């Protein structure tokens, strides 16, 4: 029976990682490294939590309005990174680092101003779980994927498909990838590299902002400084582990989600009891280094990611 319990929880942990990982994919495919995913998630998480506190008594659609607002907030916040790294030729790592520090300060500052404490007020429900009628009755698959599950997981799956279509099956995607591989060649074909990179970073802002909102409303009861606790970096790890491909991101993020869920059940599973909890916490990060080692020497990642392009 334990397997059935772990599944919804694993998918719950995986969802924000998938969303933010897809965000990182758009940004890096356009040639801009975005280590600010963590900070953008914080901004999205704060926005969603603060809004749900206010809207929850008024409308049952509160979480969905909050998600929309989180995506917009993420978009606006990511613009700093876009301007700095595209027009002002800032080092993308430094700009991303600055945004991560800024997000922590800004969100908690606003909590102090709005709620008079270092966290938002607690909301009562957040996002509700759903059970899909009929599909839940399918043997095996039903209890694993369709019963008592957060609907945002389906949204994330849908966005994986959309991302794959956009990146690999559209002109926009082709141009986006060209800017991340060889911006000079792209420019010589008449592509506006600056514009594509802006769009890449802005899409990463939308998705990471949404990811933050989803994470806080499904895994927390309020936004605090530690609500995101490194998930943006795990998303970055999923991007590397998934070889900058949407399906790869889905696989890696789900894997990391389940490894987190497993740590909740360690005490119930006899052969895992001897392994310390900290091992499960450190697992995704160690695994990322191992994955990098496995690809070492071979081509991996957009070639021009992190490189300043000058028009």
């Amino acid at each position: 029976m334990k397997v059935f319990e772990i599944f919804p929880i694993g998918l719950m942990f995986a969802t924000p990682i998938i969303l933010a990982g897809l965000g990182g994919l758009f940004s890096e495919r356009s040639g801009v490294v975005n280590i600010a995913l963590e900070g953008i998630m914080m901004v999205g998480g704060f926005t969603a939590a603060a809004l749900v506190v206010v809207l929850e008594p008024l409308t049952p659609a509160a979480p969905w309005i909050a998600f929309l607002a989180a995506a917009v907030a993420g978009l606006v916040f990511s613009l700093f990174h876009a301007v700095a790294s595209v027009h002002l030729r800032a080092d993308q790592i430094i700009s991303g680092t600055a945004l991560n520090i800024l997000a922590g300060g800004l969100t908690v500052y606003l909590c102090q101003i709005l709620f008079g404490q270092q966290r938002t007020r607690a909301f009562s429900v957040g996002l509700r779980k759903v059970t899909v009628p009929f599909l839940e009755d399918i043997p095996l698959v039903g209890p694993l994927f369709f019963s008592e599950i957060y609907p945002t997981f389906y949204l994330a799956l849908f966005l994986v498909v959309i991302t794959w279509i956009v990146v690999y099956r559209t002109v926009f995607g082709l141009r986006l990838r060209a800017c991340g591989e060889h911006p000079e060649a792209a420019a010589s074909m008449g592509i506006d590299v600056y514009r594509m990179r802006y769009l890449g970073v802005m899409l990463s802002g939308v998705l990471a902002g949404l990811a933050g909102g989803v994470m806080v409303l499904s895994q927390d009861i309020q936004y605090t400084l530690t609500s995101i606790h490194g998930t943006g970096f795990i998303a970055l790890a999923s991007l590397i582990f998934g070889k900058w491909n949407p399906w790869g991101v889905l696989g890696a993020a789900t894997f990391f989600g389940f490894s987190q869920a497993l740590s909740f059940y360690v005490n119930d599973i006899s052969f895992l009891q001897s392994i310390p909890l900290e091992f499960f916490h450190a697992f995704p990060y160690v695994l990322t280094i191992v994955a990098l080692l496995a690809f070492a020497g071979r081509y991996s990642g957009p070639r021009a990611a992190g490189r300043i392009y000058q028009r």
Partner: protein
Amino acid sequence: MTTGRRWMILSLSAVVLGFLAGAVIITLTGRSPGLMFAAMVKAFSGLDILRGSFNARYIGEFLIQMIPITLTGLSVGFAFRAGLFNIGAEGQLMMGALGGTMVALLVPAPPWLHLPLCLLGAMVGGGLWGLIPGWLKAWYNLHEVVVTIMLNYTALHLSNWALLHVVGTVDRVKTSPFPASALLKSEFLSSITRGSRLHWGLLIMVVCILVYWVVIEKTTLGFGLRATGHNKDAARFAGFPIAGYTMLTMAMSGAFAGLAGGAMALGTFGFGRVLPAFEGYGMDGIAVALVGGNTAWGIAASGALFGMLKAAQPLMQSQGVPREIAGIIQASIVLFVAMRYGIQLVIDRVSRIRQGGRNEGV
């Protein structure tokens, strides 16, 4: 303009703009920026300009804040000079604190030798943790940024595991107190700052600044590191052992951060701490190194600046200004330093207009 002078102007502009951004945000949210600046003056000098009193204890508390971030600043700056980006000072600091803690609690030693061994433990802990990304970079060409980020989280969980299961804690949050022979505490420094917690970590910081300056500016090794940072291919062609330099640089960079962790554990706290999350000293170090232009004296100055900001936080909070404004200002300053190309454009335009005006005047 020399590059050094240009950097100073750019850094100072970024600092001024950062404080300005902070003041604007405070004003927009209906608080008084004056109270923030008063808190900063008090934190830095001990002078309370609102009440007209003086208390030296604030200076001691400010220096305590300055010690770890100046050391992580040296850590990040040292790597920067060799063309490496060390985002891992946070994890190296934790492993340093762990190293110091383990020696303090588990290694029996005569009293005169105990403290030096603890500091060595801190250096080795941080240094080994820095050596990992250096080794992976040198031999497998893995990017140090991603590796150090991942190692930060690994260090957090590894050091917590070690503190809980190897060293042993009294209440799952902290270890038992260190023996007196392992402490950096100082009656003297405390008494001249009116009972502050100031400790001999101050001396470690000063020595490290000097070591940094000598190694980078005065030795062949430093020249090789700088040459590598400037142009890796040219340095390789000139016969410098790049792989060895990369590993050595990251190990030394980690040792600086490890000492920061050691100074905090052995001086400020006197026990090992199990942490729920990062405390941000690595990020602070990036800010300190960037604003300080990666020179020894620049890092010392910007370490003092950001140490002051940290020390002013509780004072601001008590004045009704949310303490997080310090983080916002710090991030803004880093962002403005990163945008130096934009600031440079403005400075160039201003000086051109001024020059034009002067020419017309003549």
